[in-house]
Each structure stands twice: as C-alpha cells, then as structure tokens.
C-alpha cells in the first residue's frame, strides 16, 4: 500500500511539474522564535520561551513561578510589546511588577475573581484578538482539582490559536494541566531560603525543563 502511494505521488508530481511539488511535501515548521525570560540560567536551559507555543510553569508556592513571570513581562514590555495577565485569583502585585522592571501601561490585567472558567474564556478571547507579545494565564493559586477541570481540548484550542503567531502563551499553575499540548514545561522547586542576618534576602530555586522526555535543570535565585 505504502509503495503504491509513493508511486502514485511520484506520478502526480512528475505530471504536474515541480511547481506543484510543495503541495505533496512535508509541512516543515518554521523555526520558532523565543522570548527570553531574563534569567540567565533558565534561558541557557530553554533558549527562551517559545513564541507561538504554550509553556507551562508549575510548582508549589514560593518556588519562584511569579518571579519568572514578572521577569518575562519585564523582558516583553521592554521590547515595546503589549502583554496580558489573566489573573484568576487577583494575586498580581503591581508594586512587585514595577520593581521587577515591568512597564505597567503595557500590561492588560484581567482579574477573574477566582473563577478558572472565566480565566479560560478571557484567555481564549485575547488569543483570538491577537497582537499581544505575551499572554500569561495565572492559575497559581487555583486549587489543582479546579485547574484540572480545564479540558485538554481547551488547552489544544489555545495552543492551536497561538501556533502561527508571535504570541508566547504561558500558563502558571501548581501542576501540569495542558500535558502534551504544551511546547515547554518548566517545573520549579525551592531549594533554599536565603537570609542575610535577620533579613529575608530571597530564595534559591531550581527549574527542570520537562519536555520530550529530557529533564534538564538550572538553578536561579530571586532576591529583593
């Protein structure tokens, strides 16, 4: 069967000429652009977060998920891009964002009052509208069982919607939710809390890049 299909293809190609050849060729994906996180070790690990793809950043509380998010927003807004933060529980802190170098006038902040379904709808609408360099769906404080209610079909639709755009879609949660729909998964773990005398200095964390069955790690620090 395979041999006859190949023969048929070869016959059609030769009949129609070379100008029709691409129609029968393999649809090669263009080289993905990426958005750097601004954290050297994570960028060396991942090469930046993919544009036109879905990235999941997950981990427990105080593992540096929001720190990575703000660093990403700072990078994107400094490139004059517009970004959107879909904040499911309303935890976004403008003061921290400004200290991290985020240009607040370029950030569309949407608070969903703890409703993950509203967050999903808002993300869907923003992805369809286009024009945003970075869209962050923040489910970090959403209970895992509620976040898991978002179906794989929804995640697939989101991924498909951003596929041929310059938008980097990032989901932040406690666990993996999009599974195979995500282009990149970053698992963050807290390794140490840093104290300077009696002052909180920051925390040290490790990021594991989990995709394509290769787990690689990078350490980074967050401080004040």
């Amino acid at each position: 069967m395979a041999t006859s299909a190949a023969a048929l293809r070869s016959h059609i190609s030769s009949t129609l000429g070379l100008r029709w050849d691409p129609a029968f060729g393999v649809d090669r994906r263009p080289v993905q652009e990426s958005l750097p996180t601004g954290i050297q070790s994570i960028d060396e690990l991942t090469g930046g977060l993919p544009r036109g793809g879905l990235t999941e950043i997950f981990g427990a509380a105080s593992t540096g998920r929001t720190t990575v998010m703000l660093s990403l927003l700072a990078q994107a807004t400094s490139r004059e891009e517009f970004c959107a933060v879909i904040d499911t529980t309303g935890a976004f802190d403008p003061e921290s964002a400004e200290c991290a170098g985020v240009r607040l006038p370029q950030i569309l902040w949407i608070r969903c009052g703890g409703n993950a379904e509203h967050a999903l709808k808002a993300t869907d609408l923003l992805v369809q509208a286009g024009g945003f360099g970075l869209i962050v769906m923040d489910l970090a404080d959403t209970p895992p069982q509620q976040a898991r209610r978002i179906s794989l079909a929804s995640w697939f639709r989101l991924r498909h919607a951003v596929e041929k755009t310059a938008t980097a879609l990032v989901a932040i949660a406690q666990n993996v939710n999009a599974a195979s729909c995500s282009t990149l998964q970053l698992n963050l773990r807290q390794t140490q809390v840093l104290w300077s005398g009696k002052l909180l200095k920051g925390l040290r964390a490790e990021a594991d890049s989990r995709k394509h069955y290769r787990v690689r790690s990078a350490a980074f620090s967050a401080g004040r």
Partner: protein
Amino acid sequence: MFACLHAPGNLPLLLECAHQFSPLVEETSPDTVVLDIDGLEPLWGSTEEIAKALMQRNGVGASVAIAGNPDAAIHAARGIAGVTVIPIGREAGVLAPLPLNLLGGSASPETAETLDLWGIRTFGELAALPPLGVAARLGDEGVHLQRLARGEADRLLRVPGEALIFEEALELDYPLELLEPLSFLLARMLNDLCGKLAARSLATHEIRLRLDLENAAPHTATLRLPVPIRDAKAFLKLLQLELSDRPPGGPVLKVALALEPVKPRVQQHGLFIPVAPEPEKLELTLARIAGIVGAENVGIAERMDSHRPDSFRIQRFVAQRSEKSPAAVLPAETHLAFLALRRLRPSLHAQVLVQDGRPVQISSAPARGRVLACAGPWRTSGEWWLPNAWNRDEWDIALSDGGLYRVYRDRDAARWFIEGYYD
C-alpha cells in the same frame, strides 16, 4: 479660477446665485461674494460662458469678474461694471487703471496717506514702483499691496465651515421589546452614519445612544473609544454588548444615535516595531471580557502616589505606544531575579502563636505550620486622619510547609493577617 459678484446691498441674492454654481463661496463683504469656479467647464462651458451665466442668474445687475486669484477678481468686479474675464497673467494690465481706493481695508490709513502723498492714485502706478523701495519704506504691508495691485496675491477662499452633525433618529410605528430587531435598526443607522463619516474622511471616538421607552425614562448609553474608529460592524457589536449587559427597562419607541466626529487615527507602522492589538478588535475583545469578569476588573494597574500598601487603581487599557515612553532598553540577563510577592486580596485572618514577641506558629486556611525563620517587625502606619488608616507590624516568615509569607499584625485591631506570599 475665481468669480466675483459685486452689487451693493444684495448679499442674500448674491449668495444664492453663487451657491447655484459652486459650494465653495466666500462672503467677502456685504456687497461682494467670491466663488471657486474650477471644474465647472463641463457643466457651464468656457469661462466667458460661466461669466455670462452668472450675470444672467444674479438678477440684481451685479458686476461679474473672473480672474486667476480671488483678490484680482474682487478688485475687477468692484472697479469695472458688467462682465470682466481676466486671462491668467494679464491681471496687472486689466487692473492698472483702477483707482487705489478700491484696495479698501487692505491698506492701513497711514499707508494710504503715504501713497496719496507720493501721488500714487491707481493700481498701475503702485505696481510700477520698485519693489525693493516699497519694501524698505512700507514694509510687508507695502509689498502685499503691490502684489494686490499687480493681481499676483494668491490665497485660499475663506469658506465658512458648516456644523458637522452626525445624528440619526427613528420613531417606531410599534414598540420594540426584543434586542434582535433593535439591532437591525441600529445596524442600518450605523451604516448610514459611518457612510457620512467616510464621506468627510472622519471617524468617531464617542457613540451616544438614546432609547425613548414606553412608560419609562429614556435609556441612554455612551460608548467612548480609546482611538477614533469608523467601523459600523464594530460599533454594532459594542452596542449589542452594552445593551445585553444593561438592557433597556421597557419597550423602545424611538431610537436616536449620535456620533462625535473626530479626525481619523493616522499611525505609521514600522518594520521592526512589534505588532500591537488592533484597536477595533481589542475594543470588542475588552467589551466581551468585561461582560464576563466585570468592567472594573479589566485594565491597566496604575500605582497611586501613596505609602499605603497595595494602593493602585485600574485604568482603561489602550494599546498605544506613547511617543514619550523611554526607548526600548532590554533589562540585562541576570542570575538574580526580583523576588515577587503574590497578594491575597483581601488579606486573610490568621491565628498566630507568639513567643518572646516573635511568631512561632501560624494557622490559617492558606498557610499552616511552624515558623522556621522570621524577619521583622517592620512598623508602618499612615493616613491616621482617615477612617481607613493603617497601623501594622510586618513580618517575613518561612513556614515548615515551605512557604515564604508576609504577615502583619494590625496594631489597632490586635489581629494577625496574611498579606501574601513570596513566589
């Protein structure tokens, strides 16, 4: 080419006659009007035929003059009775015998007196003076007068601008109760209004809707757009979202729509500037999202000029790059990122066990455990003159569950709260 009609005391008739020929009519003085006759040849024939038609139609025996610029036409009409057609380039010769007093208000009394003293009586005599000498002795005014006398002074007509009103109203034969038939009416009205805007090369940034209702007060809605738009479909969708969000309180008897005309947005895109959301699409998207989460939850966070913790307000999101915004400077790649705080809004009440003035155990819904390390207290207070003053001791604590929290003790209420956690 410009035509001038001059007849003392007959301005309304002169204007009526001029408007029969052209919409570009200048009301120069109570006895003179000027009109632009460019492009009238296919309708009225040659310039001479236009002049004759003007003569026949004015009905008050006005003198008619046609020239290449408005001022030459005015002076010829005022100085020469009947019909005068001045070919372009021959203005100086035709105007030369005219008396200088025809310049009227163009010359100040001092200049007129000076010219009189010099013995200059006609346009031709003024035109013949050496231009440099005139400029040295009479300045800019003298130069302008000489250009008028030579028939060289060109200018645009001062056409009074008509008031631009983009409003439509529709009284209904029977009251409408559903939004769908109302949408059809709105679509038609918006199409008409947007067509009128397009004909004037205008857009709008404000749409006002008024619905007169049966047995209820009128329902009004005003949509303000961040950038001027002229897209009837987008307006219709915005109005539909607004009406579904805030429906009228009764059957609709009359629909009135008004658009505020403004100049359209002109934006130069660059090859290397990142794309931004399209304003029309973004407005619709934001309206839809506002319908889901509430308008007060969508926008830009703007920090307040206050020391109060977590003080900000939500402003409208506009995807417009400010020209004054600082140039793109990429933050350097770093090993040390800024430690972010995630806030719990409102702060959550917590049971805290304190020993020797320091928290040792915390129990609340999001955080529960033994305090491994803590830093504090940092005392902050402010706005004591307001009912919502704050007065607190803040602590950073590391709990046995791995969380890194910011907690505070409200000193007035003597209660502990979890403000958020570092993440």
